[in-house]
C-alpha cells in the first residue's frame, strides 16, 4: 500500500511517503492507523490525537471507516490551512 504523510505528521514520522505491506485483515483506515501505531513509536506519536488527523484515499477525503485495499494511495494530514 502506498502511504503519504504531510505537514507535522510527515515530520514526526520522518517520511513523506512509503510503500508498506499491510496485513490482509486491515480493511479500514481506522484499522490501518491502529496497526501502524502498534509497529512503531513514531506512528503512535503522529496518530495520537486522532481528531487532528484527516485522511484521503486516492486523493479523496474520507472518514475512518473507509475501506482500503493494496492498490490504494492513502494519505494522512492535519486539517488544511491553505489560501
Amino acid at each position, binding site marked *: 500500500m502506498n502511504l503519504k504523510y*504531510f*505537514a507535522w505528521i510527515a515530520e514526526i514520522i520522518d517520511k513523506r511517503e512509503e510503500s508498506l505491506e499491510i496485513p490482509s485483515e486491515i480493511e479500514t483506515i481506522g484499522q490501518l492507523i491502529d496497526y501502524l501505531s502498534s509497529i512503531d513509536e513514531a506512528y503512535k506519536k503522529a496518530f495520537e490525537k486522532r481528531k487532528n488527523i484527516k485522511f*484521503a484515499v486516492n*486523493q479523496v477525503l474520507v472518514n475512518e471507516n473507509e475501506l482500503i485495499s493494496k492498490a490504494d494511495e492513502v*494519505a494522512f494530514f*492535519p*486539517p*488544511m490551512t*491553505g*489560501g
Partner: protein
Amino acid sequence: MDINITKDDFDLTEEIEIFNQNSSDHGAVSIFLGKVRPEKNLESMQIDCYPEMAQKEIKNIAKIAYSKWSLDNIRIIHRYGSLKPKDNIVLVVTGSSHRSDCMSANEFIMDFLKSSAPFWKKEIYSDKEVWVKQKESDLKKLYQYGSF
C-alpha cells in the same frame, strides 16, 4: 477553467491576460490575491502540499462555483514550497457578466481553498517554527453555503 498548483511565482498581469484570452466576453472580473503577510521576525512561510489531491479538490470547488453562479471563467493559482514575506501565495480570478456573480464566486472559492484544499502552512520565525492551525472562523464561513 485553469488550475495551477505550483512552486513558481506568478505575475498578476500575465495571469489576467491569460484569463482574458481564455474567457468569453465578460463585463466583470473579480480578483483575489493572497500574499505572505509580513509579521515580526517572520523569515519564511513553508507551504506543504499534496499536489494531486489539490488539483482534484480545487477543480471540484471550481465546478461547484460554476453550478452556483453564472460565470464565464475561473483561474486559480496556489503556490507551495518556501515563500518569503510579501510573496504571492494564491490568486483567484473569476469573470462574469454581472459583478455579484464573480464577487460571490471569488469569495466562495477562497473560503473553500482555506479549509478544504490540501495545503499546510508553517511559519518560520527567527526563534521558532509554527504550523498554522485551522481557524474556527474559517470553518464557520463554510456553513453559510449549506451542503451541495
